[in-house]
C-alpha cells in the first residue's frame, strides 16, 4: 500500500487527516505494525529548538530622501553586511555589537525586530551621482521594512556530537560551559523529533518543502552548508518571513566566553506515503547515536571517547570510564515538542498543506575540510633552539648561574636520562635565595607540572597554553619528552617581523 501526496492533502483539506508527532510515532508503529501505522497515520510532524549559529536575515529598508547606497551598516551597533546594493543588507546572528560585545548581537537584533521593538539603523556611504546621501540614522520597526526574510544557511543538524572536557581548565565553547576533568557532558539536538533523523534518506525533505520556521510557514531551500549526510550530519538551508515569526520560537542567546547565537524553532511535516516512511519515522532516541568528543583537544579531529545515544544523554547522566557524568542539553526538548505539536495543529486545521521536494537533496554527500594552501606558523618556526637546561640534582646556586649566563628566565629540569621532569624560573630561584631553608637542590624547588609544546604544534595553540596557564615559556619536547627547544613569549615577537604577516 502507498498513499499519494494529493490524497494526504485532500484529507488535510477535509479535516480527516491523522497527524501525529515523531515522538508519538514509535509507539503507534509498535502497536499497529508497519502496515497498520501506514493506514492510520497520514502526517508525522517533527520539531527542533536549538542554537543555530549559521542564521540571519535579509532586510530591505526602502529608499531614503535623498537616497543613499549604504556601504557600512549597523543595526543597534551590530554591523550588517554592506556588500549588497543600496538599501539591502544581511544581518548575521553571530555578529557581535561594537559596544556590548557578546551581550548583544545580530541574533538579538532579529529577536528585537520580531518582538516589535524599535531598532536603530545607522549607515554610511561615499555618495555617488545617483545616491548622493552619505549618512543616515533612523529608528525602524519590523513593519517599516519592505522585506525581512530569514535565510539560514545551516540549520536543523541531523544530530550533533556530545562534548566533554578532559583538561584541568574550564572551557567556554559553543557547546556551553564544559567543566574540568570530564566534569559534565553537554549535547544538543531533538533526537526522536529531529526532522532529518526521521527522513535520513532525504526522500521527503528537499527544496520547496513547507516547514515551520520560528512561527512562520517557511520553506526548505535545499541542502545546508557543511551538509554531510554520509556521516549522519545532514543540514538544511531554510527561509521564512520574519514578519510572520514569533519570539516564542526564536530566541537570541549568549554562550558565555564564546559569543552570540540564535535559538531557532524549526519543524517539518512528513507525509506518510509508504512503508519506508513508516520505518524511518519510527526512529527512537535509543536508535540515534552520536560521538562523545573531548573538546579539551583544540583540533578539528577531537578524540572520540565513546558512542552515546540520545536516550542516554537525555537520562541525565552517562557513564564514562566507570564514572557517572551528568549531562546537560543545550537545545530545549520541551520547545522542540511545542514546535512539533504546533505544526500538528496547523496541519490538522488545514492551515498548512504538504508538498514533495521540487529538487532532492543529496543523501550521501561527505563534507570536506578546508584546503589550506599555506600552513600557519608552527612552533618550530619560532622556537629558540639554544635551550639551556639543568639536572634535577644540581644545586640551586648552579641554576642561578645558568640563568644568568644563558640570559633566560626559564630552565627546564631534566633527570639522568635527559627526560624533562620539571622547570624552574628566575622567580623560583629568587624565592629560594630570599627564604633560605632546607632546599638546596633544583629538584627541591622545581615545578613538576610542566606544560609543554611540540615542534609541530600550531603557534596559536601554544599561545593559548601560555595564556590559559598564565606562564611565559613552554619547553618544546620530542616524542620521548627530551627538551629540544624553548618557546618563550619573546619568540612570539618573531611573528611580527614580516615572516608570517604580510
Amino acid at each position, binding site marked *: 500500500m502507498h498513499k499519494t501526496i494529493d490524497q494526504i492533502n485532500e484529507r488535510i483539506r477535509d479535516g480527516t487527516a491523522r497527524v501525529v508527532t515523531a515522538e508519538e510515532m514509535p509507539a503507534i508503529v509498535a502497536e499497529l505494525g508497519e502496515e497498520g501505522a501506514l493506514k492510520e497515520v497520514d502526517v508525522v510532524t517533527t520539531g527542533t529548538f536549538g542554537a543555530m549559529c549559521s542564521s540571519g536575515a535579509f532586510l530591505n529598508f526602502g529608499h531614503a530622501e535623498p537616497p543613499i547606497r549604504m556601504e557600512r551598516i549597523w543595526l543597534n551597533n551590530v554591523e550588517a553586511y554592506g556588500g549588497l546594493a543600496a538599501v539591502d543588507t544581511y544581518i548575521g546572528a553571530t555578529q557581535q555589537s561594537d559596544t556590548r560585545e557578546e551581550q548583544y548581537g545580530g541574533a538579538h537584533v532579529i529577536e528585537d525586530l520580531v518582538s516589535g521593538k524599535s531598532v536603530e539603523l545607522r549607515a554610511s556611504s561615499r555618495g555617488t551621482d545617483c545616491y548622493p546621501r552619505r549618512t543616515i540614522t533612523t529608528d525602524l520597526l519590523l513593519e517599516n521594512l519592505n522585506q525581512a526574510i530569514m535565510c539560514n544557511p545551516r540549520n536543523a543538524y541531523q544530530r550533533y556530537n556530545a562534548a566533554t572536557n578532559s583538561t584541568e581548565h574550564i572551557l567556554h565553547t559553543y557547546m*556551553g560551559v564544559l567543566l574540568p576533568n570530564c*566534569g559534565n557532558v553537554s549535547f544538543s539536538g531533538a533526537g526522536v523529533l529531529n526532522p532529518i533523523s526521521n527522513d535520513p534518506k532525504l526522500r521527503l525533505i528537499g527544496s520547496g518543502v513547507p516547514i515551520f520556521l520560528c512561527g512562520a510557514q517557511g520553506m526548505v531551500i535545499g541542502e545546508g552548508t557543511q551538509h554531510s549526510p554520509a556521516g549522519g550530519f545532514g543540514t538544511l538551508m531554510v527561509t521564512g518571513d520574519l514578519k510572520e515569526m514569533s519570539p516564542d520560537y526564536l530566541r537570541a542567546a549568549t554562550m558565555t*566566553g564564546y559569543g552570540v547565537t540564535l535559538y531557532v524553532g524549526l519543524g517539518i511535516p512528513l507525509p506518510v506515503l509508504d512503508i519506508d516512511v513508516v520505518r524511518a519515522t519510527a526512529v527512537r532516541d535509543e536508535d540515534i547515536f552520536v560521538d562523545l568528543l573531548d573538546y579539551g583537544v583544540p583540533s578539528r579531529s577531537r578524540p572520540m571517547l565513546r558512542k552515546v545515544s540520545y536516550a542516554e544523554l537525555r537520562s*541525565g547522566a552517562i557513564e564514562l570510564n566507570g564514572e557517572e557524568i551528568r549531562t*546537560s*542539553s543545550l537545545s530545549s526538548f520541551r*520547545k522542540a515538542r511545542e514546535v512539533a505539536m504546533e505544526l500538528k495543529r496547523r496541519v490538522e486545521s488545514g492551515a498548512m498543506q504538504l508538498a514533495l521536494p521540487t529538487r532532492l537533496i543529496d543523501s550521501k554527500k561527505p563534507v570536506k575540510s578546508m584546503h589550506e594552501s599555506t600552513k600557519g606558523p608552527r612552533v618550530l618556526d619560532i622556537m629558540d633552539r639554544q635551550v639551556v637546561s639543568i639536572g634535577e640534582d644540581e644545586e640551586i646556586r648552579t641554576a642561578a648561574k645558568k640563568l644568568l649566563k644563558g640570559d633566560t628566565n626559564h630552565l627546564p629540569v631534566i633527570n639522568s636520562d635527559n627526560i624533562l621532569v620539571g622547570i624552574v624560573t628566575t622567580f623560583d630561584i629568587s624565592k629560594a635565595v630570599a627564604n633560605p631553608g632546607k632546599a638546596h637542590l633544583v629538584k627541591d624547588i622545581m615545578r613538576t607540572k610542566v606544560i609543554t609544546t611540540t615542534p609541530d604544534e600550531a603557534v596559536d595553540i601554544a599561545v593559548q597554553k601560555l595564556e590559559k596557564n598564565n606562564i611565559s615559556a613552554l619547553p618544546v619536547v620530542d616524542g620521548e619528552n627530551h627538551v629540544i627547544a624553548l618557546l618563550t613569549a619573546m619568540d612570539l615577537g618573531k611573528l611580527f617581523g614580516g615572516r608570517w604577516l604580510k
Partner: protein
Amino acid sequence: MKLLVTFSRKKGSKPIIAQVVRDTGVLINVERAIIDSSEGEALIDVPDDQCELVRNTMINLGANVHTLEHGISVNESECIDCGACVSICPREVFSLDSHWKLQLAEEKCVICGKCIEACPQQALTLPI
C-alpha cells in the same frame, strides 16, 4: 535559614564562626566559604529558630550578615528549559521534570553562581 556572612580580617583574624559556635552552642553548617588575608565571606546554614541568635552574635563580633530568603531564581519568560544549567550545578539544584520543564530545588542552592554564566538565555539571577 541561610545567612551570608562577610567580615574584614584587617584587625587580626578572629575565628568568628568558631567563636559563634562556642558562644551560642548552635551547630553552624558552613556551605561555602572564601577567606583570604583581608576579608572573608561564608554562606552558613542554621536552624530557623536560632537564626536571630546567630545573626546578632555575628554582628556583635563585627561581621555583616545578610539573611537569604531565596536561592538562585529563574526568569520564567527568558528560560527555554534547555537544561544547560543542570550538569553545571555542584548541588544538583536543577532538574527537568517529566514534561522537560526546568525545576529548581532552591533550598539546595549555595549561591555559588556557577550556573549563571552557563545559561544561554541569561535567565538566572542571584538573590544578592
